[in-house]
């Protein structure tokens, strides 16, 4: 290590690998991974979410859930921003993920054409 700055740069690179283990409240993306979801392509959606988060250095919890009954609209993806209503997006394609993250997760504007419901937790 040649300087403190060099160490701090290295930390920048490394800290997101461990950010998941921080216990504070963070935005949450929940992906429907029941049999129906997986059959409709939820795994690709999940992969796209993870890649987008990594690319943009976002601190977001990604988790999955089982079937909630709207199998018709799978793949489903819920976004829970701290202090906001939970928004459900459905009938997703891989390309939609980027829009949801940029427009809603980062800028807080609901992507109306993809949203199918929002409800109180």
């Amino acid at each position: 290590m040649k300087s403190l700055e060099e160490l701090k740069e290295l930390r920048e690179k490394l800290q997101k690998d461990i950010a998941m283990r921080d216990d504070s409240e963070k935005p949450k993306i929940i992906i429907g991974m029941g049999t129906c979801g997986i059959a409709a392509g939820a795994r690709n959606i999940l992969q796209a979410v993870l890649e987008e988060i990594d690319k943009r250095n976002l601190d977001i919890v990604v988790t999955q859930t089982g079937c909630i009954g709207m199998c018709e609209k799978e793949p489903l993806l819920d976004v829970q921003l701290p202090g906001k209503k939970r928004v459900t997006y459905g009938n997703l394609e891989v390309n939609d993920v980027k829009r949801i993250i940029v427009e809603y997760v980062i800028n807080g504007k609901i992507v109306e054409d993809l949203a199918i419901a929002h409800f109180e937790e």
Partner: protein
Amino acid sequence: MDHSIYRSHVLICTGTGCVSSGAKNIKVKLEDELARFSLNKEIKIIETGCHGFCEKGPIMIVYPEGVFYCQLEEEDVVTIVEEHLLKGRIVDGLLYKEPLTEESIPAYQDIDFYKKQERIVLENCGKVNPESIGEYIGLGGYEAAGKALTTMTPLEVIETVKQSGLRGRGGGGFLTGLKWQFTHTAKGDKKYVICNADEGDPGAFMDRSILEGDPHRVIEGMIIAAYAIGADEGYVYVRAEYPLAISRLEKAIEDAEELELLGQDLFGSGFNFKLNIKKGAGAFVCGEETALMASIEGKRGMPRPRPPYPSVKGLWGKPTNINNVETYANVPFVIKEGAAAFAAIGTADSKGTKVFALTGKINNTGLVEVPMGITLREIIFDIGGGLTDGKEFKAVQIGGPSGGCITEENLDLPIDYDSLKSIGAMMGSGGMVVMDEKTCMVDVARFFLNFTQNESCGKCTPCREGTKRMLEILNRICEGEAREGDLELLEALAHHIKDTALCGLGQTAPNPVLSTLEYFREEYEAHINEQKCPAGVCNALASSYQIDQAVCVGCGMCVKVCPVDAISGKPKESYDIDAELCISCGACADKCPVDAISQG
């Protein structure tokens, strides 16, 4: 350092405690199961150091939710993967249940055991992979060392540590900053820093867990200390019985050297530091600093009189600073967060936190870190979950073979270095053995004295001969062969040894005897005058067990457990114990469903 994206981190504790309860098999099983569902690219497995909750091992924590699973068996892994990791459903049956309320608690920070703890030293323990320098750096590791080396003078570092009020965690409680200052001012072209990891007290495993769980924190603390006193070389003296701690420390040193966090010209400051490991052969006396240094020099591990103190004349005659593992592990926090932040925790004269190893007759055996000034009642009953089998609390032994007993009356005393001393115990390194009504205090004193007697190096007469005589008296008392005046002789010897022994081992060896004599003198007297062991532990004095025929239901459970076949009778009627054959082990009384068996 590879960078891949995962949606979940599964932490498996691989501290020594969990490894012995089967954590390695759990990990292998988890790898197989993740592969079976092709989840291995989405979910990362991380081996961590001790979470402290060794009682509930093997332990697994699943992030991002932070769900705590405990006491896992291999087949549980299948359920966790299929339910939680694949479908996102928390497996309720494998969660921790609070013993009092029977309530399942998913998030581990909500468990009573963790709630009252305040973690500085153990901050990363159980959270990071101790074999990954990347994770330590990702959490801000080595920045305190960088800050000290590039923006502070050695004297400023010493001043900060002094102001923080940090005191030595190895037992003595000497002000760390002051110790550093002595070594800093001592004249010498070559100086050393040493980390004392020769933890040997029965029931203590704080240092081991820190080295196993977060070795880089100790290394960082040592770099800062070396810079402050002007040393360019250091040793970690760790006992060879700690193979996992040694291998993790070796890996940590290697990785730090590779990133030039150890070696030449650190952070471009011109400061050099080389760190070595010295494996000790496991003699208790080598925890004494002068004996420890003799051992590093390749000599027989024996103490020498002080002064001169190591800060003036230490390793190979050079000024040397020796601190304990936990002390060094506190240093990065002090430098990074500042003296005031550290001094804000604790009591007037004891700042910060203390790590204790909780063992004995307590529900939650394990490792806890609590702020100074907490009461023993909070540690034992809130964090420790109370005594096993609902037994009555009798005493807690603090400070191992050098410490003393604390009884019910002092349970609400806020504990720090000075309050413990005032009641005849000491902080020691932090071993805490909880004892219940079935513990014989004379036997406890005998156990500890037997330990120190065995570990006496033999150099000075008071310790070599004196502890031997004391042990003989204690053996006589427990065997029911005590002579008139034995108790007075025991007490006198204890005081003489305390006053005249050469080193800390001898000077503190009588403490367990003196403290049990003070609080439980009547137990000693019962052994001597009435030939009775009130707790029913000392075999020679224990009276045989009897069955109350009026209560006995004739179930026959006692017959099955009696190791000497002393019980006879008819099923569904009643049983009887042959007093001649009974060895008073108490196995029958423990098993009896109607409490019909008692000691006569």
